[in-house]
């Protein structure tokens, strides 16, 4: 349900005129909700940025997500590490 909620909140923010990108932990749900830009990450539920105590991985996930911000061919759904 979290992935659906994120997509719905994301749409409202994008509609308000702010550029958005989200993390997806469940590709099947994000493909249905189709938020403007999402980065699918291969981590377990509850670990959207990878690992606790691993700031380098967390930052790399954020950088990969931020790299999608310039994309306007929405909905954008890319996979982390590809």
């Amino acid at each position: 349900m979290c992935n659906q909620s994120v997509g719905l909140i994301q749409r409202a923010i994008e509609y308000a005129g702010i550029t958005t990108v989200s993390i997806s932990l469940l590709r099947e749900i994000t493909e249905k909700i189709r938020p403007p830009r999402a980065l699918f990450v291969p981590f377990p539920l509850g670990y959207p940025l990878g690992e606790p105590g691993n700031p380098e991985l967390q930052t790399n996930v954020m950088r990969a997500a931020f790299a999608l911000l310039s994309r306007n061919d929405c909905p954008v759904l890319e996979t982390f590490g590809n």
Partner: protein
Amino acid sequence: MAQFDDIELVERLFLKGYPFSKYSPRPGDPVANAVTPLRKPLDQCMIALVTTAGLSLPDQPPFDVTIKMGDSSFREFPAGISPQLLEMNQRSWSFDQAGILRERNLALPLDRLKEMQQRGEIGKVAPRHYSFMGSIVGPTKLMKESAPEVARRLRGDNVDVVFLTPV
């Protein structure tokens, strides 16, 4: 990698039957199909964080896990807090909470964002950040009230970019 099979059977059956397609964008729906292009380079953008991890500050009311269709309210955090102060209220049994309990940055990466600002990778950390609780089965109130209200506040702070994380 998280897959449907990782989720407890009861929740998996619920998710399989849940009408996610009901919330797929419909043609002509201005909210669902909105695209806001980035207006400036990232190193000039103000960035805010939004998570559905169900986080709240100790002096804020916790999320109400007893609301049947899900608590669609939100909590607002000033940028100056340490994320480790945040408490987590979740009714979802479908995910492992241990990671976020160890480090809140895993869901609300405020420290990472501040580091990116210090390195000049982003322009500025926004003054306010937000958490919802994710387990919202009936999202009408979320879509009509609380999400647009957070969007208005973010606009009021002149935020350029929002980064969202589920759990």
